């Protein structure tokens, strides 16, 4: 056993919720508004409903071998060579995801807040804090998430309440302007962001102590997180209109600038930015943790902590050279991310699950046959 920590179902639910909000709070509304225009709120709810089926698959896969992580499952089900190849494919996706998150936070802080600081410095600082968290283990990450959770909820509530006076219903009319096609398109492209990324929890679910309530916790966390995201998309469309939301790189940050209560409470956008500094931090830490743990299990090491510093070098370098500019990043996010996530986080686990079920059935049959003889 590489990880000795144990987390409760409630911790698991909180970490799933925070992960779901994650970085989608920054890039989600813009992406949806680009595809579905003023109907983005419907597209977002549709994506949430579809994503329940992914969570269903992950839970079924996790309950096939409840005490094994996905990487160990692969090896048990598919054998040493193919299993490890599948695991490496799975882990490389999360390697990119971690570096993408580092890149996202770097881009955000250098363009909006700390404009004269080199992006490398911000990335290194952020990754070092994350590394510190991962080194301390799963238990510490989840407890920290539980401690910061009330702050995240509090700031979100404050944000939504302060935006109520700015809402103009005219922004979401006309409903169904482009028909059903843009809505389906929008929800398809928002599936990978964040719902398919939840596959990383296949690496963590074995360490939850209450095996029965973990299913409920997984569903509840995803659902509440998804509802918060849909709500956010709705509010950004209602306050700023579809055009403005689609044109901005960080619509939710601009939303914070719009807050003005009696010309007294103004320019509190940096308080709002704290929400996603927290959520992106936890998302990055979970991805980093899953990556290190999975890699240690592939190579059969006794300790995953040894891999953290080399992985930090790898993540920083990929974050710097993967996207030459932000346009490339958005193109990638809009057009390639969801199909890529579908292959790695849906078809791959589905394949493993089907083979696992067949193998388990065959093992039971063989057993009964030998008993008969």
């Amino acid at each position, binding site marked *: 056993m590489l990880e000795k920590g144990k987390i409760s179902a409630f911790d698991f639910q909180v970490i799933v919720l925070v992960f779901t909000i994650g970085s989608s709070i920054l890039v989600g509304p813009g992406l949806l508004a680009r595809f579905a225009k003023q109907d983005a709120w419907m597209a977002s709810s549709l994506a949430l409903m579809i994503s329940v089926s992914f969570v269903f698959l992950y839970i079924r896969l996790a309950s096939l071998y409840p005490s094994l992580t996905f990487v160990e499952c692969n090896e048990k089900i598919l054998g040493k060579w193919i299993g490890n190849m599948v695991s490496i494919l799975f882990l490389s996706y999360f390697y990119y995801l971690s570096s993408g998150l580092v890149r996202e936070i770097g881009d955000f802080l250098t363009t909006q807040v700390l404009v004269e600081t080199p992006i490398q410095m911000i990335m290194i600082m952020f990754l070092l804090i994350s590394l510190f968290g991962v080194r301390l283990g799963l238990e510490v990450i989840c407890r920290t998430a539980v401690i910061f959770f009330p702050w995240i909820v509090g700031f979100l509530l404050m944000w939504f309440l302060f935006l109520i006076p700015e809402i103009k219903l005219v922004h979401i009319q006309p409903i169904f302007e482009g028909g059903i096609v843009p809505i389906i398109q929008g929800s398809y492209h928002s599936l990978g962001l964040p719902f398919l990324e939840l596959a990383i929890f296949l690496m963590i679910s074995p360490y939850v102590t209450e095996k029965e309530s973990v299913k409920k916790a997984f569903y509840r966390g995803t659902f509440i997180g998804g509802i918060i995201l849909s709500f956010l998309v709705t509010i950004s469309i209602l306050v700023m209109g579809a055009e403005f939301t689609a044109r901005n790189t960080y619509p939710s940050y601009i939303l914070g600038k719009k807050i003005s209560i009696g010309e007294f409470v103004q320019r509190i956008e940096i308080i709002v930015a704290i929400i996603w500094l927290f959520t992106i931090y936890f998302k990055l830490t979970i991805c980093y943790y899953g990556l290190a743990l999975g890699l240690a299990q592939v190579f059969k090491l006794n300790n995953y902590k040894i*891999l953290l510093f*080399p*992985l930090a*070098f790898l993540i*920083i370098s990929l974050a*710097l*050279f993967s996207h030459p500019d932000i346009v*490339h990043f958005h193109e990638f996010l809009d057009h*390639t991310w969801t*199909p890529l996530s579908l292959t790695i986080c849906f078809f791959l686990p589905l394949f493993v699950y089907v083979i696992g079920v067949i193998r388990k059935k065959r093992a039971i049959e063989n057993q009964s046959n030998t008993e008969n003889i």
Partner: protein
Amino acid sequence: MWAIIGLLMIGGVISLFEILPLIKQKNWREVTVFFILLSIGLLLNILLVLRIEIPTPLDLLNQLYKPFTF
């Protein structure tokens, strides 16, 4: 030049702290994986410092998934 020396020194210090206990316990597997990953990471970072353009793997993915986007 200084940046490269700095990077190598950081790598050296990290491996000193991480590897010495492992060598004492004779965990050669960990040591090998650590050095392979660290050298790839350092190599990429040195290329970035020298401003040599590394082709991004995402362009390949962009091409590969073009038919599945609409």
